[in-house]
């Protein structure tokens, strides 16, 4: 009897998670999609964003989001992968036991703190060293790259550990060095886990808002170099929602719909890749 009750309660809780996801999805699309049809796809995918004067083009923000995300991956993948390889293959148990929680702690730092560090240290550094306003694609990429490190490191680390030891022993037995074993055997064997980690990190980079608003400068113009300011989809929503009304508000929900689609696609890809294992 007790088991039955517990089962039903847990079922209701599990269903409520699905229900809230369904409601959020419905709400975002219901608020945003009508505007896309009203404004027309041509207007929506143009460069002119002036939502109080019927310009609803979000192309520069889509490009901005992509640039910042690619930049974050360019920083996050090499460092994240290197960290995971070191942890899984080169470090002793005590080092693993200290380092892994420390890296995972990075995920617990609020994004506003990352943004603040960016404003106080990184932005002036970039401005004084490389020129430009400092609030830039580069600043956002570096900060986001650090923010997605814990995701990439811990998932890749788990994937590397999941490779059976017999692989390593077999490799050493035929005379391969440790480095050859890692590059030619372990990384390909752990590939699906590593790619999933990268895609989840990518999802976080696309969705990050606060830190990006603080350090990207948010200029609407498409950046000509990584030292120029950039505006992402998430920044636009957060910057403008407070004052938005009518079509402007709907346009922000349309931005949200586009973001939602990007995240869904990324997650489906991640699930597909890990599922093949």
């Amino acid at each position, binding site marked *: 009897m007790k088991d039955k009750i517990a089962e039903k309660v847990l079922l209701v809780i599990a269903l409520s998670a699905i229900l809230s996801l369904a409601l959020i999805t419905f709400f975002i699309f219901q608020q945003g999609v009508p505007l896309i049809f009203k404004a027309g796809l041509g207007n929506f995918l143009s460069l002119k*964003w*002036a*939502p*109080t004067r019927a310009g609803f083009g979000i192309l*520069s923000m889509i490009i901005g989001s992509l640039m910042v995300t690619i930049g974050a991956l360019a920083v996050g993948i090499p460092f994240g992968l290197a960290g995971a390889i070191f942890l899984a293959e080169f470090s002793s148990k005590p080092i693993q036991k200290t380092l892994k929680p420390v890296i995972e702690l990075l995920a617990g730092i609020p994004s506003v703190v990352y943004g603040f560090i960016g*404003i106080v240290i990184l932005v*002036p550094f970039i*401005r004084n060293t490389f*020129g*430009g*306003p*400092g*609030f830039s694609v580069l600043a956002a990429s570096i900060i986001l790259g650090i923010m997605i490190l814990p995701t990439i490191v811990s998932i890749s680390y788990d994937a590397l550990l999941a490779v059976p030891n017999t692989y390593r022993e077999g490799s050493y037995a035929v005379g391969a060095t440790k480095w050859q074993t890692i590059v030619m055997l372990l990384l390909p064997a752990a590939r699906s886990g590593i790619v999933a980690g990268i895609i989840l990190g990518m999802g976080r980079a696309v969705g990050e808002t606060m830190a990006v*608003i603080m350090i990207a*400068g*948010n*200029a*609407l*113009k498409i950046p000509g170099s990584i030292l120029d*300011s950039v*505006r992402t989809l998430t920044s636009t929503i*957060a*910057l*403008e929602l*407070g*004052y*938005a*009304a009518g079509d*402007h508000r709907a346009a922000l929900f349309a931005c949200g719909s586009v973001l939602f689609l990007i995240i869904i696609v990324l997650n489906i890809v991640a699930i597909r890749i890990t599922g093949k294992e």
Partner: protein
Amino acid sequence: MIIAGSTSVQPFIEKVAEHFMEKNPGVVVNVQGGGSTAGVQATMNGTCDIGASSRNLKPAERALKVTLIALDGIAVIVHRDNPVEDLTVEQVRGIFSNNITNWKELGGSDKDIIPVTREEGSGTRASFEEMIMGETAISDACLVQDSNGAVREIIATTPQGVGYISVGLVDEREKAIAINGIKPTLANLITEKYRFARPFLLLLRGEPAGACQSFIEYVLSPEGQEILGSSGLIPATQIAADR
């Protein structure tokens, strides 16, 4: 009692509300931001008791009862080390439309100008566009921040920066620039020599009554107006007296 709306009005109303609550221990005044448009909407649908707006109402919003409490000047600010002291309206337009891009052209050092503007929908931006930009559009190349404080922070830390904020919020870390030779001082604002000022309005859905009425009366009382005046605004009663 909930007051919601313009983030430009918010810090000033908070100050007045503190004094009001000291005098009226039974009343709790809760001051929220959200922006002028949000304030107008919240007043119309009743989610707040008093709305705050830093722009004049649009025709569709005229059903609300409006009380002018003060005028706020908009100052163009630069970093305190910037040698530029004075700009014409045309030069300011040139900067924000990205036609003037180097401080050298304005008598400063040979450095790129970094203009900082407010986001679409902001009351401060709307006033700046209306009073200074005119028909000229603000360039996409400008950095965008979503509050007076954030703009001020960037200007205070960026030697090449230029932005615009409420006169009352300019502090010693930045420098307010004279426009057409006239500094945005209190005296110049009251005498209307400095023309770039916008109204701060409190909005009510119906006729004032109860706590809302006493709050608005307090804001317009000599004491309330003194608080606004000492924070850098031009109190409404002073404007009436001077005109």
